[in-house]
């Protein structure tokens, strides 16, 4: 038995933490790109990452680096900033305090306190990469505690659903940004360093190299991040996990109006299971990627309709 409001809180804890991790990794990769070879190409590669975080205009001209990094990490007015996401995750954790284990709560709270400590008092100069890594490690610790100290029942499935729907949508959006730039870039090609940046933004460079060798090609990168069956940050992998979480939720819920969310997730997952990268790229890759985002939106709505914000009239006992 799970309160609808608690299900909502659990789902959002995981979504916000996934988003915080995504932002932290993008900032980390962007900073790293600027090291060693600070020229126009690396700069543009980094700017593209910021653009996907919702910083408008970074691709149009030179912008001061430090404030951009500071905003992506700590600006609470910016909803995708790492600090915003960690704060929101922790606030949701407070709301569902009795549903999660004390170990999980203490880790979530410690993460929040650490971020706020740096934000308000810490000397941040030159520390952004280590801050990003600390936060990512803190989120992974939370996920480990989630798996190790909380029953894998209905509540846990909402955490899974939140984490993987966020991952599917944000990875698809990130690929889209590169595909879009690829189409308009002069000469029709991004540099190899851009594609490496994309892989690293998904923590996928090593896994990619093991699979395809270090020969980094755009269609292979797209294939790997979209369609890999076993890489945990690919869209296909994320939708598989999302589908199984939603199936478990449907079984636990036992409401006859359930089932829509898992059907939609199953359909998305199947389309990726049987997808072919050459077909996708030759047809309209941007429409395809946008379609993934739209389907994630529909799955989210269906989840809410079925379990969280359902109309009372449909549920009143006879």
């Amino acid at each position, binding site marked *: 038995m799970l309160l609808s409001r608690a299900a909502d809180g659990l789902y959002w804890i995981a979504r916000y933490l996934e988003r915080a991790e995504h932002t932290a990794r993008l900032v980390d990769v962007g900073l790293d790109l600027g090291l060693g070879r600070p020229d126009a190409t690396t700069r543009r590669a980094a700017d593209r990452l910021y653009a996907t975080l919702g910083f408008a205009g970074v691709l149009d001209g030179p912008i001061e680096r430090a404030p951009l990094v500071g905003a992506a990490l700590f600006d609470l007015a910016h909803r995708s900033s790492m600090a915003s996401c960690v704060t929101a995750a922790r606030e949701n954790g*407070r709301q569902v305090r009795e549903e999660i284990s004390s170990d999980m709560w203490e880790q979530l709270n410690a993460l929040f306190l650490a971020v706020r400590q740096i934000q*308000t008092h810490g000397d941040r100069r030159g520390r952004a990469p280590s801050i990003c890594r600390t936060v990512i490690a803190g989120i992974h610790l939370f996920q480990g505690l989630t798996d190790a100290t909380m029953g894998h029942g209905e509540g846990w499935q909402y955490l899974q659903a939140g984490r993987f729907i966020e991952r599917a949508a944000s990875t698809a959006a990130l690929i889209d940004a590169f595909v879009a730039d690829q189409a308009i870039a002069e000469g029709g090609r991004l540099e190899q360093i851009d594609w490496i940046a994309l892989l690293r933004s998904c923590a996928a460079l090593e896994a990619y190299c093991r699979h395809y060798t270090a020969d980094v090609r755009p269609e292979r990168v797209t294939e790997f991040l979209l369609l890999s069956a076993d890489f945990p940050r690919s869209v296909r992998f994320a939708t598989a996990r999302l589908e199984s979480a939603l199936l478990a939720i449907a079984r636990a819920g036992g409401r006859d109006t359930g089932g829509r969310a898992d059907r939609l997730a199953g359909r998305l997952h199947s389309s990726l299971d049987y997808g072919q990268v050459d077909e996708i790229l030759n047809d309209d890759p941007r429409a395809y990627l946008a379609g993934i985002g739209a389907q994630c939106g529909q799955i989210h709505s269906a989840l809410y309709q079925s379990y969280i914000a359902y109309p009372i009239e449909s549920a009143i006992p006879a």
Partner: protein
Amino acid sequence: MSLSQPAAPGRRMALPSSPPGDLFSRYSLDHVYDEMFDSSGEARPHCVPLVEDLLAASLPQLRQHQTEADRAFLTQGITFTVYGDEAGTERIFPYDLLPRIITAAEWATIEAGLTQRLTAINLFLRDIYHEERVLAEGIVPRELVYSCRHYRREMRGVHVHRGIYVSVAGTDLVRLQDGRFVVLEDNLRVPSGVSYMLANREVMKRVFPGLFSRYSVRPVADYGQTLLAALRTLAPPNRPEPTLVVLTPGVGNSAYFEHAFLAREMGVPLVEGRDLLTHDNAVYMRTTSGLRRVDVIYRRVDDDFLDPLAFRTDSRLGVPGLLNAYRAGNVSIANAIGTGIADDKALYAYMPDIIRFYLSEEPILPNVETYLMSKPDDRRYALEHLDELVVKAVGESGGYGMLIGPHSTAAERDAFRQKIVSEPRNFIAQPTLPLSRGACFTGDGIEPRHIDLRPYVLYGDRVRIVPGGLTRVALRKGSLVVNSSQGGGSKDTWVLQD
């Protein structure tokens, strides 16, 4: 064991000969009861192991323990929000490192006294909302009851399952010069603080494990189970597998941590008003698998906010229709609606008579002498002695609406004089009590500070009191106000085995 030669009353405590006793260099004794040392400066027998450990400790060690304790509270999120601060600063409630120790014999008296008191209070509430014998026989003045703003007319004639109106009470005790505990006030609506009793013990075990090896301390950890069992007894008889919930006003409430804590300890859902709805006079909560019937609500929401259809219409914390479901007997609420009449501070003065009336027994725990401002003789006396008395507003709690005569200015006394004259029913006066002092770590050493004691009394199949309670500390030197909202802190409270 002695801290060297006896200290005369009012004198500074003499330095012990054994180093590094300078932790105690600012410890002074006077006419007030000291929980650790008797008036001659000898450690009380049950405090000897603690004093020995402290004499062996160093200032940096204690500071280290204090830092660890504070950090433990912070990471556990045992905090309250400072309102009006942009950054939403969260602070911990100050925690004093040293335990307050109560002997088995002292506890036996407290337990018997509180059991007697809560039994009588429940009989009184049942009577007040049904036959009114206590009024008819002139034990309690009728107008005092009807003029209380916590008296709920809606509860007249309402059947309360098993006659248990107050399932959870938090009664404040203080210890006077002669070492006796007296009742300062009853909290019978939504008493809070029990999570600190439990959290303080956990933190104490974490930072000071060595101390426990020298004492046999009765555990408090089963409070959650005891509370759950007590609440279960309230379930409507036709609901053999009752669903219980804790009702909280939400994360914005300063006691939210405690609400979530108790829900977790009991393994029941923590709900807000918006999670509940009524249909056909039954209460349901909205879950992922549809609506689920709720049988017992442990509410941490005041009467006023429970049901916007019955009480305050502007309440967004409550559940429309809850009162009717309750009156229909389809849901139980703990504590019952309308218990605030019994912790009205003017009613308090009649509590000894109430105990005698219902139980034909003498009160085991005495009351504090109380002057009712609605009585002309009492009022005249109090207005002449405002500089010696403590004046309290009858319906307030949390240390608000209080005048402490000896610590007040002439202007403050004048303000209270006017309030008393214009609304005598709303005030009582009591002598300024010499609250006992407990040893506290100040950061620079160990000094005595005024303390009180709030045990938590549960009424299920019978009255049960988890051996312990919340010892609140007036951390500012000389202050008599222990409320957390007024700069107080708390300590772990040990009840020893026989």
